[in-house]
């Protein structure tokens, strides 16, 4: 039997990922702001993005440049002519009832084709994910319903988002396990952040469809996965669903399913009556764009440092372990925090450990059920309060023996609550470590008095010893030096067993 998490060559998963180019100032074909979030419905619009009669698209040059950057990082080929196509279908969120997008069936016309991404951080092995194409297109508007889509008597349309630049990345079905999908998406999120073209933390900035098939069975599309984090869950669920159908001898139908993130299952989408025919043809209002090798070189030269190079630099310049460096770079804001913090305190490894174990651990506890793979909005609130100076001071205070790690973690919570500097918090609450044996002895005696039974258990059970240690720490408000307390407790236990009490 194969477990779900493990790579299984019979399982084939492909991804279709949409990333908004959130760093652009304007939409793809007009001068409306690209940032539509939080605005009154239908206020972030103009005659062009509303598809008013007689308007024409004016291509955003920077959008092409951003899309080319991403294509290059994903090792795509850039065709010498880039062409836009019209995808024709009727839907109320589409102002022109066609979408300006790209299409490769008649020529290689999209911004990128035939890319490859090496997944080298799988446990011990590596594999290649092929990218079929990377294309630039316009986002449609959004529909709002009165409650659920099935029950609602009407739909309202908001065109604020219509015309925002979207990059679509289509992979070959080269993933064999959900964890490979997660690794790929984390990698992609880090690339997007490092290129500075898309902020994956923004709601709806990254969306993903997945297709899943097992062996020779039909392919199932999963749509409506609105965060990178949910993709792994959706794919895992779908594999389990298909396996259990197969186990009962039920044929798997080729269909489109929706990811219901509240119930964490995939559900059958309303079956389409017939295959949609999009009647693609070249967009007559946007001339083809001729790309020279010089243009490609200029884009390459303009690209910022990428995750891979940054990991190497962290290892070589700051002597971080490769694992630590990868964790930092995996989330650009952590890597940025690291580089800023070591300006205040140059023990790079200590600062890095603080971020990777303590801060990240804290963030993850607060990120249960959060939206996406890289950082949730509550995390960004936290990160806004924790400055490089805070991190540097915490690491310095622990390294100098002034406070212990447990206390430091408590201080971190206060930092987040108050924004005060750790050194100031230490002074205000007197949290210097208690390492005076006489002061500690009274607390230790008190605990033994209260926890007689646990103390007797400790003669034969290490866990009971930890329980007692925990209580001493609590009574000392976490200030006790845990190593010293442990040795004191052991002394008492040994003394007791010797006297046979």
């Amino acid at each position, binding site marked *: 039997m194969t477990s779900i998490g493990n790579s299984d060559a019979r399982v084939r998963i492909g991804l279709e990922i949409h990333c908004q180019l959130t760093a652009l100032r304007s939409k793809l074909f007009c001068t409306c702001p690209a940032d539509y979030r939080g605005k009154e419905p239908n206020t972030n619009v103009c*005659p*062009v993005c*509303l*598809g*008013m*009669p*007689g*308007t*024409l*698209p*004016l*291509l955003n040059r920077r959008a092409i440049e951003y899309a080319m950057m991403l294509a290059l990082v994903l090792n795509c080929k850039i065709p010498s002519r880039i062409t836009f196509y*019209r995808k*024709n279908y*009727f*839907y*109320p969120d589409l*102002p*022109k*009832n*066609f979408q300006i997008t790209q299409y490769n069936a*008649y020529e290689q016309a999209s911004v990128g084709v035939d890319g490859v991404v090496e997944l080298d951080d799988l446990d011990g092995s590596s594999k290649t994910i092929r990218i079929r194409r990377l294309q630039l297109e316009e986002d449609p508007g959004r529909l709002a319903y009165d409650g659920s889509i099935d029950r609602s*008597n*009407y739909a309202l*349309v908001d065109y604020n988002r219509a015309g925002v630049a979207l990059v679509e990345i289509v992979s070959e079905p080269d993933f064999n396990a959900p964890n490979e999908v997660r690794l790929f998406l984390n990698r992609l999120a880090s690339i997007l952040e490092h290129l500075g073209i898309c902020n994956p933390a923004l709601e709806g900035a990254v969306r993903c469809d997945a297709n899943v098939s097992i062996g020779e069975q039909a392919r199932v599309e999963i749509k409506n996965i609105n965060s990178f984090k949910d993709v792994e869950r959706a794919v895992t669920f779908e594999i389990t669903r298909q396996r259990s159908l197969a186990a009962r001898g039920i044929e798997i139908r080729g269909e489109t399913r929706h990811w219901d993130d509240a119930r964490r299952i995939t559900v059958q989408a309303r079956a389409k009556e017939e295959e949609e*025919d*999009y*009647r*693609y*043809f070249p967009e*007559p*209002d*946007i*001339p083809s764009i001729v790309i020279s090798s010089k243009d490609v070189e200029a884009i390459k030269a303009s690209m910022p440092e990428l995750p891979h190079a940054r990991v190497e630099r962290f290892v070589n310049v700051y002597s971080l372990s490769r694992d630590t460096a990868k964790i930092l770079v995996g989330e650009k804001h952590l890597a940025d925090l690291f580089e800023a913090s070591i300006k205040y305190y140059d023990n790079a490894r200590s600062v890095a450990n603080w971020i990777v174990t303590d801060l990240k651990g804290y963030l993850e506890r607060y990120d249960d059920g959060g939206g996406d793979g890289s950082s949730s909005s509550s995390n960004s609130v936290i990160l806004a309060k924790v400055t490089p100076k805070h991190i540097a001071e915490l690491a310095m205070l622990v390294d100098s023996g002034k406070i212990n790690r447990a206390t430091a973690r408590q201080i971190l919570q206060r930092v987040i609550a108050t924004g005060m500097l750790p050194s100031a918090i230490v002074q205000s609450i007197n949290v210097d470590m208690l390492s005076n044996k006489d002061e500690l002895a009274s607390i230790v005696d008190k605990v033994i008095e209260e926890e007689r039974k646990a103390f007797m258990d400790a003669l034969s059970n290490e866990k009971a010893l930890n329980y007692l240690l925990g209580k001493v720490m609590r009574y000392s408000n976490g200030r006790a030096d845990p190593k010293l307390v442990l040795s004191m407790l052991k002394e008492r236990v040994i003394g007791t067993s010797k006297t046979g009490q």
Partner: protein
Amino acid sequence: MVSSSKIALSAYELVEEVKVGSISVEDYIASMIERIGSMDERINAYITLNDHALEEARMIDKMVKGYSNDNGSYATKSLLGVPLAVKDNISTQGIRTTCASRMLEDYVPLYDATVVKRLKGAGAIVIGKTNMDEFGMGSTTEFSAFGATHNPWVYERVAGGSSGGSAAALAACMASIALGSDTGGSVRCPASFCSIYGLKPTYGLLSRYGLISYANSLECIGLMARSVLDLALMLKVAAGSDMQNDHTSIDANSSISLDLESMNHDLKGMRFATIREIVESEGTDEPVRDSMFDALSSVERLGAVVEEVSIPSLRYALASYYTIAMAEASSNLARYDGVRYGYTAQPDGVAWNEFYSKIRSNFGSEVKRRIMLGTYVLSSGYYGRYYMKAQKARALIRDEMLKVLNHYNAIMLPTMPILPPRIGERISDPLRLYMVDICTVIANLAGIPALSIPYSMYNGLPIGVQFMARHLDEPLLLRIAYALESARGDKVRRCMI
């Protein structure tokens, strides 16, 4: 009120009088509105008149009299006070723009088309919006939700199309200059049928921003006038890119030099080509062929050499043209769905697709025909057989045309192979109707400029002659027209007064 002889003034003559103050623009516009009131019930050239035309006229009078603080900038405005008719598929801010369709019956644009903005900037006054075939689909201005336009010269004949309202308005002196649009001959055909000038410029020379799309890769805004100098004035003002709104226009304002002073009255050293396949075609009416041969000897007398060439690929021209135009139309017209603007209905309790069908059944029959055929040729599996093949044919035709233009300064053709038909005569047979576009569509397929020049009359029916030139060689076309205009003198009437 202004005398009827003044109503027939050319725009450049009118501007002179306005600038010296010998004509009040308010009087002039009022007279023209009165004329429209008395004549247009019969002709039906206008769909909507501009309610603010008189107000705009008064503003100009104030400028000229020095009552407004514009520091005399009016002196530089080359179309000061000129009444401009605008085809009803070109957007005008605040004036409803219907495309002669029920679907846009109440649609009022929020902005001016770039070309309209430029002409208004030069002092022109939009007097009204003119009738046309619905969305530009037709050659007779009979396919209009607002009724057919009648030919001012012969009332029971069509005015041509699809810019029939603009041409009729000029011939009947209900405007001084006019804008049309030309997808496959829609400016030149009515110009020829109404005995005025109609210029289809090089594709992209005039901004298309604000022109309501029918077939984007073929169509241009076209210029219509009763004199060559007026056409030149308009072109000078209208040409140029609009980088703020429109990537598809050419920044060629400076490269088109229109030195009208130095225009020659002869055509010495010019070499023109006629196309055997068209001149010899059975589809060409005898009077049209006679007029063409007469025009031929006219240009020869002016010093030009004319030779006959063959362009075999022309037999694919109509098929290629209609395939591409209908494909693009089927997509362009998808946006008229009753959700955001235009004709709509109560959507309660109706599913999307049902709602769309209900709304979109208000297109006219010819528009429906072209949407359906366009949808068909783009369908998966048919793309290669129709659309792609049409594009290949288009490239072939363009290359052959340009090859001819490498050896000759211009190509000389009839504008329309037929005389203006009677109203109702052709409309029932779409294929026969499509055939008459053969002499004009080739310029749209090749993207080159083409000009229809009023040349003669046969039993009171106007006949035009057409010249096509290399990309951006509009100055040459104007020069040919100027020489012919001078040579023909009073033999050609360009307005009914």
